[in-house]
């Protein structure tokens, strides 16, 4: 394929490097420095998609971030990404892209039938059309919409790319590297301020890349290049291209997305795909420029109709002609710049100017070049379906209400200029009260809320001379406040052409008897008639009109449509634009990929997975792991073809019969130290702590102030002023914050310090009748007899040269111990226990067996302490001290908490002693009662009792105290189960606790 629309020389592309790419399966080539859009246009490709609602053919409208049409599906390095603007995507070798919104193909699109049925798809069609009949929804509407709608397909694969987040602080953040950005960055940098200059495009310079101006006796572009290379050399300046500042948040924090790798065929090793910058700036300078706005006319969405500034950019930056018979339709002088560029490259443009007799330097230049200029002329409608073939044009009266005779002009593109709209998104996001500027028919920033200043075209200033002057001064003034330096900068000479006034004209009236669609919003297919319907149906607020018609709600957020929409509403409503007001600008300014937002917080729980120091051993011994909060814990150790059920039964049985060992490293551990530690624990826990001797452990329960159980665990007095507290795995972090709260804020007079030691200790629970024999062999020098180390006792021991802490505590109902060593010795300890335990038939056990053992014994855990239960509910009222006050005690007097029939923990056994009871099931009196069947309680935990060899569950049951012996039903609609059960004591095994004390 030849690039028939590429001019011979010129542009900023590298003609020495050809790049091949594919679009919709066809191979093309472009040059290094092209965008996908410019390369396609160079090849004469204008048809790139179909519109969202009517599936009308879509081409290119802009040349950058404002592009509403050319949204493609991109394929890169085996990955695919939707919603990519062809005007922003840089060309790389092997790039592949395809159209979206087209089914089955861009040239033959079934959805285009909507175009002929458009009478059925007016404003509010989302709300009206698909309401009836209901039966149509699944079979007809939904499949049709799913197939026909959407802006591409998200990949269902795991994203292999890496994304980074970066936090940065600076004195001045400057968004946009056009003339105002460069000038302010330069003077601020010269004053020694720490500056970040961000440019969303690959090339710096903004409008200077395409405008015909002179700064300090150089072309605008050369001046920009000079400033940039100087800034890049300065250590206090960060210059970033391909970086879009897209959001302005509280306390002057801005977020910027840097496309690190999107322009490359493949992300380089160790490089991220994108980097999201969180920038806290002392001052923000918004130099985001302006976007040309279209003039509305019939069929103004036909491929080949585009912004006049885009046509100029394609020509000056990429050396591409968007057409060879261009029609320029303008209401201001900008259109002439485009016409002159065409003319310079040997193409004959025709200019239609809505003004009757405009006079200016640039118009004179156009006239001198012999360009055909028609004043008081407008484009009434574009002709052509997949591409502009001609234009219906006419003269227009001075009041812009009456059209003259329609003439037809041959053309292959229509370049439109309806004047300029400042890009005020960032200022508005920061809380700036924007105001309407009558002079330019657009909103500009008003009073700043945060430390933000808008400069240049973004502030409605369209002359280069004034822009440069104010920008140099602002950069200097703001940096001076911060660095207290005052470096003199001479402001360069500017040569630019003076503009005449633009025409306050934005929409061409319909010709008599014609009903062309005149589009306002090109991505969401919102036409003038849609807004008219919305207003006729009573919508008044611009926010409502927006939602009803979807004007400005597409992924381009109405960058080219909002103001014309406002003009229309104000015209019909007979109001002025400022009283209609604009809709809210919300971040992000332009779509940001989810990967960039997520950053490194990917994978399970979006958090690092925590592993115990014994983890590798478990892995080597066929452990099947389970998530316990952010920890991975062995659920069971699989032998042969064992199922979870079989393995956990075997492991639990072995604890009851011989001895088992369980990794309990994940338990939360907190050191509580200080002379007032005992007093503090006495206030935190519900039971008494003042008399606990050194070398003894005690089980404790702590409440929240509202009386709900917060956590439980054992705390051991290691020495006079040193306690070792344990918490559940899940509550470890909350308990620490809770303790800190009381120590720092409520009782600062207590001399106590707390610190987390969870990571410092590895723990192994050794449980079962043979555990003492094993312990004696592990610690031959330590007396671990029932007298030497009684129940709830604590000693320190020597484990083959490793210092260990030995606690005699049990959560299994068996004689049991917990041994702690420093984390680094965790695996050593574990292997010693396994090695020496062999003669006692030791087996490791996982969380499933651990649960079985604690459920059988009626010991409560997280599923009972679920943030809804008080001590009584868990049969823990025996631990409530009557003598002393403690956190949450007063709440326990609340009437609901002392009710006679208060819920309480019970045991549940199926009558057939066979059917397993699903956790979460409800307990009811009558299985056949009409719905809603009154719930009496719920199953909190279930297991297979290895002691009694039948299913056993714990439940929190209304009036549980008086329900022992009752027959109820367990119902699980989810599992479709109804099970007759008997209510028993929650202490199913060893109710008197004899084994643990043996």
């Amino acid at each position, binding site marked *: 394929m030849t690039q028939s629309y590429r001019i011979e020389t010129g542009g900023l592309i590298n003609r020495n490097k050809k790049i091949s790419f594919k679009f919709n399966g066809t191979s093309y080539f472009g040059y290094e420095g092209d965008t996908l859009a410019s390369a396609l246009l160079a090849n004469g490709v204008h048809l790139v998609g179909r519109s969202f609602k009517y599936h009308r053919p879509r081409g290119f409208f802009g040349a950058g971030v404002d592009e509403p049409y050319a949204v493609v599906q991109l394929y890169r390095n085996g990955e695919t990404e939707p919603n990519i603007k062809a005007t922003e995507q840089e060309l790389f070798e092997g790039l592949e892209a395809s159209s979206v919104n087209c089914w089955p193909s861009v040239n033959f699109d079934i959805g285009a039938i909507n175009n002929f049925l458009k009478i059925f798809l007016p404003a509010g069609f989302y709300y009206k059309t698909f309401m009836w009949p209901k039966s149509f929804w699944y079979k007809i509407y939904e499949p049709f919409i799913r197939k026909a709608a959407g802006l591409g397909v998200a990949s269902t694969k795991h994203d292999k790319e890496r994304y980074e987040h970066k936090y940065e602080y600076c004195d001045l953040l400057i968004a946009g590297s056009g003339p105002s950005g460069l000038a302010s960055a330069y003077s601020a940098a010269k004053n020694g301020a720490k500056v970040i200059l961000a440019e969303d495009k690959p090339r710096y310079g903004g409008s200077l890349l395409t405008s015909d101006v002179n700064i300090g006796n150089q072309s605008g572009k050369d001046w920009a290049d000079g400033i940039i290379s100087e800034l890049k050399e300065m250590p206090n300046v960060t210059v970033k291209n391909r970086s879009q500042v897209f959001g302005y948040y509280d*306390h002057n924090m801005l977020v910027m997305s840097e496309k690190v790798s999107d322009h490359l065929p493949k992300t380089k090793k160790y490089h991220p795909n994108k980097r999201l910058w969180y920038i806290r700036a002392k001052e923000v300078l918004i130099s985001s420029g302006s976007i040309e706005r279209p003039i509305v006319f019939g069929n103004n969405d036909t491929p080949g109709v585009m912004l006049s500034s885009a046509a100029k950019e394609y020509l000056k930056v990429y050396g591409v002609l968007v057409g060879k018979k261009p029609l320029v339709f303008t209401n201001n002088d900008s259109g002439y710049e485009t016409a002159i560029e065409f003319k310079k490259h040997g193409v004959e443009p025709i200019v239609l100017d809505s003004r009757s007799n405009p006079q200016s330097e640039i118009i004179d230049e156009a006239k001198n070049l012999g360009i055909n200029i028609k004043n008081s002329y407008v484009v009434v409608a574009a002709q052509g379906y997949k591409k502009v073939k001609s234009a219906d044009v006419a003269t227009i009266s001075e009041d812009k209400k009456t059209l003259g005779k329609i003439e037809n002009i041959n053309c292959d593109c229509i370049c439109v200029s309806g004047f300029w709209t400042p890009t005020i998104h960032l200022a508005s996001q920061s809380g700036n009260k924007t105001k309407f500027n009558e002079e330019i028919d657009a909103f500009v920033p008003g009073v700043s809320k945060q430390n933000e200043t808008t400069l240049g075209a973004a502030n409605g200033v369209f002359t280069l001379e004034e822009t440069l002057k104010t920008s140099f001064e602002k950069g200097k003034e703001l940096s001076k406040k911060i660095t207290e330096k005052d470096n003199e900068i001479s402001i360069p000479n500017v040569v630019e052409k003076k503009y005449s006034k633009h025409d306050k004209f934005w929409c061409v009236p319909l010709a008599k008897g014609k009903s062309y669609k005149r589009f306002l919003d090109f991505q969401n297919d919102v036409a003038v008639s849609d807004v008219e319907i919305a207003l006729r149906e009573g919508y008044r607020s611009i926010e409502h009109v927006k939602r009803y018609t979807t004007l400005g709600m597409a992924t381009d957020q109405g960058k080219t449509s909002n103001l014309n929409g406002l003009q229309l509403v104000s015209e019909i409503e007979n109001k002025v634009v400022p009283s209609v007001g604009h809709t809210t600008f919300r971040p992000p300014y332009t779509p940001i990929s989810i990967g960039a937002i997520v950053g490194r917080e990917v994978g399970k729980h979006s958090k690092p997975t925590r592993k115990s120091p014994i983890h590798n051993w478990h892995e080597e011994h066929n452990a099947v792991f389970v998530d316990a909060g952010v920890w991975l814990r062995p659920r069971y150790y699989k032998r042969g073809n064992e199922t979870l059920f079989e393995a956990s039964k075997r492991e639990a049985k072995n604890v009851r019969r011989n001895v088992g060992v369980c990794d309990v490293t994940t338990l939360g551990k907190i050191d509580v130290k200080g002379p007032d530690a005992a007093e503090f624990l006495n206030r935190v826990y519900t039971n008494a702590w003042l008399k606990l001797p050194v070398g003894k452990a005690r089980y404790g329960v702590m409440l929240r102030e*509202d009386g709900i159980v917060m956590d439980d665990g054992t705390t051991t007095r290691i020495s006079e002023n040193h306690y070792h507290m344990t918490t559940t795995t899940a509550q470890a972090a909350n308990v620490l914050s809770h303790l800190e709260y009381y120590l*720092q804020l*409520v009782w600062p007079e207590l001399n106590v310090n707390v610190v987390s030691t969870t990571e410092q200790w590895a723990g192994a629970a050794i449980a079962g009748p043979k555990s003492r024999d094993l312990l004696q062999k592990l610690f031959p020098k330590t007396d671990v007899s029932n007298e030497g180390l009684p129940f709830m006792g604590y000693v320190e021991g020597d484990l083959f040269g490793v210092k260990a802490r030995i606690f005699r505590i049990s959560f299994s109902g068996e004689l049991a111990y917990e041994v702690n060593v420093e984390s680094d010795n965790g695996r050593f300890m574990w292997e010693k226990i396994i090695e020496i335990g062999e003669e006692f038939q030791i087996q490791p056990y996982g969380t499933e067996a651990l649960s079985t053992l604690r459920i059988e014994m009626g010991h409560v855990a997280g599923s009972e302490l679920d943030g809804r239960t008080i001590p009584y509910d868990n049969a823990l009222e025996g631990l409530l001290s009557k003598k002393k006050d403690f956190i949450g005690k007063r709440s326990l007097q*609340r009437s609901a908490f002392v009710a006679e029939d208060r819920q309480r923990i019970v045991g549940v056994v199926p009558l057939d002693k066979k059917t397993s009871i699903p956790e979460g099931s409800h307990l009811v009196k009558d299985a056949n009662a009409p719905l809603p069947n009154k719930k009496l309680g719920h199953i909190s935990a279930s297991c297979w009792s290895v002691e009694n060899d039948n299913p056993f569950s714990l439940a929190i049951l209304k009036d549980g105290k008086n329900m022992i012996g009752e027959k109820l039903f367990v119902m699980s609609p989810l599992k479709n189960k109804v099970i007759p059960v008997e209510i028993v004591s929650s202490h199913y095994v060893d109710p008197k606790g004899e084994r643990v004390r043996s």
Partner: protein
Amino acid sequence: MLHIKCPHCGMRSQNEFSYGGDATVKRPELNKEVTDQEWDNFVYNRVSPRGKHLELWQHLSGCRQWIKVERDTATHEIFKTYKANEEIA
């Protein structure tokens, strides 16, 4: 994201902190008889003012100190921050 001055560590981003609610609520003293109403006011009842609000934050991923922050709930302006035991001006 707010920028909060920890009186111990300096200016830090909000994501290092966790929110702790109204800082003016005083826990009734231990062992003191309190009415149901007084206790409910301490545990449950909070005003939700528009404007200046003295609130608790904990510098969780920093020094772990609980601090008091005087913030405008409507504009997010932070007027002053205090150490836990500092007199409120």
